[in-house]
């Protein structure tokens, strides 16, 4: 592992001082990360995070931080993404609070050792599965939902009793700076740290050896992270984007469908991992769909979305250029299409006459662009979806239960939702994660706790009762073997010889 040149004292001091809101963030050098990791390890070894009281206190501190600094978060996300206050509060703050409260309410239950069914010989023993914390985990956030994707995994990591180092995205500078500034005031300073590292530095940070790495982002970066983790045998959870298909059947309630799709696609100016990426719409219903979308967008954002306070902006010029490129080189604009570079503004846009080979269908769309492709029937739609990589979500709109059922059972994705979008990824009780190219592992609620825990199987035996165990000792005799087999046939088939081991 190559090390950067040792920072001069002035540079070192600069890196450590807290920045005020509005200043650009300073990087955390890998050398400093080494130090933070060491501190977190020492704190973990000392057993600070293991006690239930500590975990509850930290979770409550997270809730407190979100409540007391709501305005600061709204402001920071406003500067980064021009995110409307409503969206910040609902999709970032309330969501994280819900997770934290859910964890607080269920922590005792989750921390209980699970008793396992015992067999004949272990009746006098204790067979348990204990959830143990892993150690120090690394959480790498993304810029689409910067607060949510850093703090929801953090809630899980805290609940499971770990120490954590968070690396929020370098794209959302103000939100990252805010987290960097606030977290030391609310969470334990030895156990939890925020580092400012870019994608190019992260593989090096991962090679410092963490006990789990949680990454949200795109597929290329995910692969780099997985490779770095592979070198140190670190388990990873990857939440990667994908092109989420949305099938609209000819039998559906168009007005409701359009409202739900439009909300899902255009909130946060289309920058979401779980938004429907493209529509596969039945030929019969396409014209009505486009018309309905036009009306709906007018209702949501007015005749000039640029002036609407409910519509956001693209996070930075790089993503803006990328999305604008995709927009200009694909299909026909049916609704919207205006772009203003100075503001990083792209109007809510609907594209029609899109071919499978168009750029918009080759890359994941991070922007308010919704391509519509037509299919003749459900079979075509399913075939099309299955030709692509497994996405994070598959959506289907239909009043026909059979169609929904077919789409659910004949496709594969991280999650599935019928007649709505995004909600399945927001429910605390449902696991949220990808499969195949959209990632591995899941989180939310209990699943977060399990992701950051190790399930240790424990068998607590007594040495005193040797009456039956002697059968397994050498010198081996066929007689003993037959006895064991005979004894196992007396009981349930599923127990076998370990009955009397």
């Amino acid at each position: 592992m190559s090390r950067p040149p040792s920072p001069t004292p002035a540079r070192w001091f600069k890196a450590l001082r807290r920045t005020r809101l509005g200043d650009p963030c300073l990087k955390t050098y890998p050398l400093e990360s080494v130090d933070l990791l060491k501190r977190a390890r020492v704190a973990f070894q000392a057993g600070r995070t293991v006690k239930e009281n500590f975990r509850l206190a930290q979770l409550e501190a997270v809730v407190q931080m979100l409540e007391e600094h709501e305005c600061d978060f709204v402001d920071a996300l406003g500067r980064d993404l021009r995110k409307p206050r409503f969206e910040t509060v609902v999709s970032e703050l309330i969501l994280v609070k819900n997770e934290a409260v859910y964890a607080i309410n269920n922590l005792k239950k989750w921390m209980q050792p699970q008793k396992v069914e015992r067999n004949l010989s272990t009746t006098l023993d204790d067979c348990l599965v204990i959830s143990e914390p892993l150690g120090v985990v690394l959480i790498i956030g993304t810029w689409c939902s910067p607060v949510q994707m850093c703090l929801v995994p953090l809630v899980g990591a805290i609940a499971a009793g770990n120490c954590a180092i968070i690396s929020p995205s370098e794209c959302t500078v103000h939100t990252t700076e805010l987290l960097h500034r606030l977290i030391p005031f609310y969470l334990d300073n030895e156990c939890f740290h925020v580092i400012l590292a870019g994608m190019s530095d992260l593989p090096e940070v991962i090679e410092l050896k963490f006990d789990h790495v949680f990454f949200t982002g795109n597929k290329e970066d995910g692969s780099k992270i997985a490779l770095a983790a592979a070198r140190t045998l670190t388990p990873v959870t990857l939440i990667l984007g994908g092109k989420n298909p949305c099938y609209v059947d000819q039998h559906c309630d168009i007005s409701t469908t359009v409202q739900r799709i439009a909300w899902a696609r255009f909130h946060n100016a289309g920058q979401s991992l779980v938004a429907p990426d493209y529509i596969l719409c039945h030929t019969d219903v396409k014209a009505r769909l486009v018309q309905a979308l036009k009306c709906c967008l007018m209702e949501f954002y007015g005749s000039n979305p640029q002036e609407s306070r409910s519509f956001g902006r693209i996070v930075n010029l790089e993503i803006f250029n990328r999305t604008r490129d995709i927009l200009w080189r694909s299909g026909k604009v049916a609704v919207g299409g205006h772009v203003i570079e100075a503001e990083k503004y792209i109007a809510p846009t609907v594209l029609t006459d899109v071919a499978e080979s168009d750029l918009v269908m080759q890359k994941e769309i991070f922007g308010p662009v919704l391509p519509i492709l037509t299919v003749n029937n459900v079979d075509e739609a399913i075939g099309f979806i299955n030709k692509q990589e497994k996405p994070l979500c598959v959506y289907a709109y239909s009043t026909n239960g059979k169609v929904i059922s077919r789409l659910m059972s004949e496709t594969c994705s991280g999650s599935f939702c019928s007649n709505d979008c995004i909600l399945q990824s927001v429910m605390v009780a449902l696991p949220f994660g990808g499969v195949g190219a959209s990632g591995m592992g899941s989180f939310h609620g209990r699943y977060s706790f399990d992701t950051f825990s190790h399930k240790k199987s424990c068998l607590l035996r007594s040495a005193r009762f040797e009456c039956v165990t002697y059968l397994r000792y050498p010198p081996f005799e066929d007689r003993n073997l037959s006895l064991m087999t005979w004894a196992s046939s007396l009981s349930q088939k599923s127990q076998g010889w370990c009955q009397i081991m």
Partner: protein
Amino acid sequence: MVTLEPIIHLSRELLPTPKFFFGLTTNRSRVGHLPLEKMESQSQVLERLRTAFESGVTIPEKFRRTQLTNLMSMIKDNEEQIVNALHKDLTKPKFEAILSEVDIVMNELHYALSNLTSWMQPEYVSKNLATKLDDCFVRREPLGVVLIIGPWNYPMQLLILPMIGAIAAGNCVVIKPSEVSAATDNLITELMPKYLSKDCYAVVRGGPKETQALLKNRFDHIFYTGSQAVARVVLQAAAVHLTPVTLELGGKCPCLIYGRVNATAAAHRLVWAKFFNAGQSCVAPDYVLCSKATRDALVPALRQVLEDFYGSDIQKSPDMSRIVTPKHWTRLMGLLNRTKGKVVVGGEHDEKDRYIAPTVVVDVAEDDALMEEEIFGPILPILTIESLEESIKLTKRKEKPLAFYVFSDESSVVKKVLENSSSGGFCSNDGIVHMALPGLPFGGVGNSGFGHYHGHWGFEAFSHRRAVMLRGWALEKLNALRYPPYSDEKLSWLRWTTSPKSCSIM
């Protein structure tokens, strides 16, 4: 499905005895010698399996049951051949082979068949206010084509047990037996296509080169049991395709003996666990930590128990296994020669026979040769550390092992060790058996691996948990609260309806 039973029974009558048969196939270089269809290339095999998976044939419960039942027949019908193959590879005594390779697999099969229906059921979750009229559940879906790479120390168990989970979960499976345990490799390659669907399950053979080539392909999950060094290679190959991996690695499993303890009882269980399969188990107690007094009581007990178990001339006992290859034998002898400890029991060895006597070494220091790497052989070092706290600190300085053992009659000692250690599994007053219960997850943590299997955990390891929400069209008025144009009034409503008990009304 055509039943092969009469054909197999008939062919058994006609074939020469198993011993003769395996005499023909011991030459590892004659891989293509087996009387089966022509060897397909790896990519052809994978394509066939992928087509089969995409056709959906592995999804119905009936298919999975049939395959599992056939697997059970395969083990039952060929028990003798399996035992003989294992004897050929590791000189495994029949008792050990049946216990640790045949019965444990049969157990797992019975468990899977009894529980398959309930495992396949969707798991309904508690709903919140807004989703009361909807269906929210988690579906278990198969991943696709999975790869299982087996090791040589328990060549049947550690290959077939994960395979059971993979089949039960509805996947197509490629298995790669270890070429080191050649006879078992041959046997599995011969038997598998006779009992399981050839379209959905395949055996790929070969050494490191073939395995590396195999790993270049894309799988939907890789299950690897073996060493850390190879695990890194597997993980890196998997990372390119973003394939999830389950790693079952070893580690130095410590065995702490403190407090009040019955030396004879502890010696029985310790000897059994340590020298089973000549110490070549990933969960064998690797080294012992105890006080001087305990050691002085333990060593004669160990000596006595070894004599009770294997007789006075252990090399002649049919109940003691051998080391798998000359290379591994040499490695172990190297460790024994370099140790600065004192050999108090055993120490005899025979290179031609690949035999090392059950050996106990005392006065071993923390930086001894025997403490450098996982021993994986019949050598038991005893480190003398007076206090339990110091012992626990020593184990914390080492990597997290696959198993952690403690022998003590005092529950406070057991509790202290349990709460101050981390390992894949934990067992007090015994060794190895904790992995025999299908209800307990078997897996490592840290450098001993990640992921679990056995029983339901195996099913989960090879499944994708897909969250499904089936919404209705009703309550759109309620939904309208979340749509733009945003207003503070709507926000207040949404906030008010958010309560700690139920999720947001979104």
